[in-house]
């Protein structure tokens, strides 16, 4: 402390002895030392989720501004991360996180950490059972109910269940057993569904306290044995669009307390299928409700390439099922996501890289590439 004061004196003395002319003002002296962000968040912001495959204890989320390409900030989110979940006002971030008392060993602790999107500071933490699924990141691993009241988290131990968290009281409510069924897709203010191994859907209704009051299991809604659908659907209203390995769109619609399959339609012509065109990637589908457009990452390959990246984005009119546009991507892509506003951007994760490409979806033009975004980015989450 004595020496500290001595330094202060030294700095003040040299500061007072500058050359003639006004010097730049000091930054040391400004009250603001830490940035904050506008609230609510911009509609062209994106949260790039990174589970950091080579160092999975150190998961991260990178917040970017798609308009400027500016890197806005980072969240540190623990082991085997999947993705953050934002409520519709975008003012908070819910992050299901796993920690071990000794990094890769010791006692496991699962929490939902709550961050403020304006400060990126921790504003709350909710303990949950140490059962959260560890898998390739996928959006069905956690979602909020349609009124943002309950956070639903898929567990796999390998027994399957869903943890229900009340965001109002910030407490764990309980666990809903979902044997044979994966994921926790919200389907209303008090309901969610899982996808079952036999291609059926499990519909679960909750009461106002978050406890399950009804479970309804459908028949198989697609051909799970011969042409299963990929995990990642996109949703408009009460319809979820899935794509099968061979490139058929399966619209699944909520009907009452259950689900029905609308007629499936193909992305490809018979000739295109013969040429091996099929969807691929992780977040293979994107959608924009206002434009009525569906975006699909496409490539050519055999069935076992159903997760391979693609350099082509095929664009479909949801009403006519017709392909209306083809975007030739600058780089092979694994995940795409459209912003939800009226002047949307289409965000994409470039395969084998930490680069995020931003496209104008209507023109297909690559607007910018944002580099050095984490280590192994996997899923994009946008402002609701």
């Amino acid at each position, binding site marked *: 402390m004595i020496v500290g004061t001595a330094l202060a004196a030294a700095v003040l003395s040299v500061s007072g002895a500058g050359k003639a002319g006004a010097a730049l003002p000091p930054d040391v002296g400004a009250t603001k030392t830490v940035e904050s962000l506008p609230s609510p968040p911009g509609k062209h912001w994106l949260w790039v989720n990174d589970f950091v495959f080579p160092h999975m204890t150190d998961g991260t989320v990178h917040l970017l501004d798609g308009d400027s390409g500016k890197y806005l900030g980072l969240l540190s989110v623990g082991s085997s991360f999947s993705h953050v979940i934002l409520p519709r006002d975008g003012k908070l971030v819910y992050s299901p996180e796993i920690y071990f008392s000794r990094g890769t060993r010791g006692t496991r602790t699962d929490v939902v950490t709550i961050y403020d999107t304006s400060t990126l500071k921790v504003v709350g933490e909710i303990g949950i059972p140490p059962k959260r699924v*560890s898998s390739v990141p996928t959006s069905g691993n956690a979602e909020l109910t349609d009124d943002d009241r309950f956070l639903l988290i898929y567990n796999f131990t390998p027994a399957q269940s869903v943890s229900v968290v009340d965001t109002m009281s910030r407490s764990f409510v309980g666990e809903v057993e979902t044997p044979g069924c994966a994921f926790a897709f919200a389907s209303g203010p008090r309901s969610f569904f899982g*996808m079952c191994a036999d291609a059926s859907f499990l519909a679960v209704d909750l009461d106002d306290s978050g406890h399950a009051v009804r479970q309804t299991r459908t028949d198989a809604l697609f051909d799970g044995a011969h042409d299963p659908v990929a995990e990642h659907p996109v949703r408009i209203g009460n319809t979820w669009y899935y794509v099968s390995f061979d490139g058929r769109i399966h619209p699944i619609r909520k009907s009452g307390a259950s689900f029905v399959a609308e007629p499936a339609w193909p992305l490809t012509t018979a000739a295109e299928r013969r040429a091996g065109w099929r969807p691929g990637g992780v977040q293979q589908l994107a959608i924009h409700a206002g434009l009525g457009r569906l975006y699909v990452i496409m490539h050519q390959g055999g069935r076992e390439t159903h997760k391979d990246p693609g350099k082509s984005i095929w664009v479909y009119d949801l009403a006519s099922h017709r392909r209306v546009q083809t975007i030739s991507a600058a780089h092979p892509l694994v995940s795409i996501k459209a912003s939800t506003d009226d002047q949307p951007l289409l965000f994409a994760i470039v395969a084998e890289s930490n680069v995020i490409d931003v496209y104008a979806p209507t023109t297909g033009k690559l607007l910018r590439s944002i580099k050095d975004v984490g280590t192994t980015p996997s899923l994009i989450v946008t402002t609701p």
Partner: protein
Amino acid sequence: MKWLDRFTEESVRAVARRSSRRSLLAGIGALFVGAAALPLLPVARGAEAKPAPGKKPGGGTADPGDPSACDYWRHCAIDGFLCGCCGGTQATCPPGTEMSAITWIGTCHNPGDGKDYVISYNDCCGKTSCGRCFCNRNERDTPLYQPGQSNDYNWCAGSSQSNIPYHCSTARIVGAAE
């Protein structure tokens, strides 16, 4: 390495695809593939556990190829870091890790003897990613909602005291397939 479509640590491979007992293993049942089954096998096969002379794994014509190479025949359905590059072998975990009790299963063709074998891809758990010899041969993979045949789960989770941390994957012979 195509990390993103290929980073998955494990895959339950379908002996069912080549077996008339497929119906037994399909659906929810596949969830528990290997959970109790594999520990039963050592008892039945203790006498056969040692390689026959001249048939060292990875050497000779009976088990041809390099166990540290992705194209080694047993790796036909593997998805992860090869334990043989991490201080283990194709059949054992590296020192200080723990073998997962639950495993995913593949059926691979051995060009050395012309037979098909059921391969158990047990994960080794409890240390951070090995990071060496990533290998993915992603055939017959199914989505996560069909866990028994999906290579996108981390089977270290819940399957060992080590819980989640995934280190590498082995490729162990269960037996000859029909």
